[in-house]
């Protein structure tokens, strides 16, 4: 047995176990007898640059062929669903936005749509609020797909793609920061409206971005699509057809890359998506290549929606009229973050006792939601994001469950990877675009 300072070996009842720390595969492979000991079990992750977050894959290998994969999750479980039951309905936004941190606008919107459906105020959401919601969800989708392109590029060896993807995403995060004060985890969409109105400076930034990104998209296509390595690493890899997708519950770009044009924005519209013109891109190859093409095309469609939303944007209120639900204060961005505007503080502290009481009750105690349950689903960058919200009539959620596409989609890894090569596990896993914050919640 070869010993190495990088790969120490010990005997266990399960066989010989190596602890590998990098750059030392020679010492592992040289000590395995290829005739009598063909199978090795490799533990990949949870801290591994190619597993897209803290995902652990237990792989059984025969040579370079994967015979069995077992995904192990839960390393990022934060108990958000449990925590929600101890806060008001409005405070819940702050939690759900931290689930899938690459698409927090969809998380917030789905939660708010569910709360609004429970309250029965879906029709009272103002035109402007809905338009801004749609616009931000689409910007978020672009940002999420750019990160997918960036990380997948990195995992397949196209390091420059990672730099470009993150660079472009920063423009979108700037827009969010301009509007909500935060780059990520915005807490921007609230039950009944939005935390703050969209400032004119952000509108200008969005217009600039709409002019900027299409040029860059052409560059990515020129860089990746025609590239032989990229094609070889993606075409025919990790195939999962429509039957496989539906039985495993896979939705989103993976399903559309298999040829089924199922997009909740079209098929079961919400938040006014029926008023926008866009296509649902599909592919028929059902492989990583198809998923790449679908996501690239979706970025372009999202740009179209953002442009239409900007054109539809009219001045108006962003909160519903019902003062029993609408946030009592106009929020303003101060040096220490988002807070009540000075004007509002002056009014409740100096002029109107009733306003103060109203503010205090609504902010500390929150509004009551009639008992019942709803299930609301939105098209998240990774598939169907469903919120099952249950109220017992109180000021806190009784139960909120997130049907997270990352969680459900990860079940497909064994189906896609078993029987293929080790390198294709990386490509296949990346093509699902799992975000472990969302998966583990």
């Amino acid at each position, binding site marked *: 047995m070869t010993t190495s300072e990088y790969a120490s070996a010990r005997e266990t009842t399960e066989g010989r176990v190596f602890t590998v720390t990098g750059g030392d595969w020679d010492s592992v492979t040289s000590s395995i007898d290829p005739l009598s000991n063909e199978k090795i079990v490799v533990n990949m992750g949870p801290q591994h640059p190619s597993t897209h977050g803290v995902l652990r894959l237990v792989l059984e290998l025969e040579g370079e062929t994967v015979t069995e994969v077992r995904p192990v999750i839960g390393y990022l479980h934060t108990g958000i669903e449990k925590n929600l039951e101890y806060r008001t309905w409005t405070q819940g936004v702050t939690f759900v936005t931290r689930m899938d941190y690459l698409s927090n606008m969809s998380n917030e919107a789905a939660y708010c749509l569910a709360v609004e459906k429970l309250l*029965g105020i879906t029709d009272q959401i103002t035109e402007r609020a809905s338009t801004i919601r749609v616009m931000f969800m689409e910007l978020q989708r672009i940002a999420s797909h750019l990160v997918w392109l960036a990380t997948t590029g990195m995992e397949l060896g196209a390091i420059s793609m990672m730099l470009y993807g993150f660079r472009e995403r920063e423009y979108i995060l700037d827009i969010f920061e301009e509007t909500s004060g935060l780059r990520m985890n915005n807490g921007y969409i609230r039950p009944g409206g939005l935390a703050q109105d969209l400032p004119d400076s952000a509108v200008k930034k969005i217009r600039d971005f709409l002019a900027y990104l299409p040029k860059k998209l052409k560059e990515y296509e020129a860089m990746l699509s025609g590239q032989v390595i990229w094609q070889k690493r993606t075409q025919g890899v990790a195939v999962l057809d429509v039957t496989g997708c539906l039985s495993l519950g896979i939705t989103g770009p993976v399903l559309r890359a298999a040829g089924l044009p199922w997009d909740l924005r079209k098929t*079961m519209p919400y938040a006014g998506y029926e008023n926008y013109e866009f296509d649902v891109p599909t592919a028929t190859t059902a492989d990583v290549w198809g998923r790449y093409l679908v996501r690239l095309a979706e970025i372009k469609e999202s740009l179209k929606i953002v442009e239409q939303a900007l054109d539809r944007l009219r001045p108006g209120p962003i909160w519903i009229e019902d003062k029993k639900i609408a946030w009592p204060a106009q929020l303003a961005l101060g040096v220490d973050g988002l807070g009540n505007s000075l004007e509002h503080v002056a009014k409740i502290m100096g002029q109107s006792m009733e306003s103060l009481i109203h503010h205090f009750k609504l902010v500390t105690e929150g509004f009551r939601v009639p008992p019942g349950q709803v299930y609301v689903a939105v098209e998240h960058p990774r598939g169907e994001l469903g919120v099952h919200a249950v109220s017992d009539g109180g000021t806190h959620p009784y139960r909120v*469950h997130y*049907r997270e596409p990352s969680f*459900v989609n*990860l079940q497909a890894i064994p189906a896609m990877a078993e029987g293929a090569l080790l390198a294709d596990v990386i490509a296949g896993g990346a093509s699902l675009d799992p975000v472990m914050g969302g998966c583990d919640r």
Partner: protein
Amino acid sequence: MFGVTGTGDVSGFGRLVRPRPAVFDSPRPYGGYFDDVYDALEEAYPALSEAIERVVVDRAELTLHIRPERITDICQVMRDDESLRFELCSSVDAVDYLGSDERRFHIAYQLTSMTYRRRVRLEVAVPDGVAVPSVTGVYPTADWQEREVYDMFGVVFAGHPNLTRILMPDDWEGHPQRKDYPLGGVPVEYKGAEIPPPDQRRVYQ
């Protein structure tokens, strides 16, 4: 809000812990496509009246309360019948109605028909310690979701291929999302003041 004790209130705001309001059968017609779904299901599964406990239409959503032992049969029919075609099981999750329902755990299955663009929720209620038949044979996607329900609520799914914990560590004791499982937490110091954990906050006494 002031000095409220003994209600199990966790907010400190005197939120009364109210029993779950009684759920009533909705009268026919249910409206929309709900009647079509119910009729189609009755035709495809003649013993429906024995399998179904009640039909609830609320907030434009149809909920069919199913007897636990029939859930796999119903799912099979819902998936395969030509006029139902619920191809996708979107979500499986549980709600713990501790104290307001003897059968405290309600498992909700959100089914989606892509052919007809419809959604239906199936709901199954079981008391603690009673197993629910697994639907993984009909909808393989329920695999991880049933494991999550088991992990978080301790509901056992009979016939599940590998019912182990999924999010919590394997040696964890208890099932965290049960209503009688405490939230826990530690006090946090912020700007010199100590803020108690959420379930011990703001008791106005």
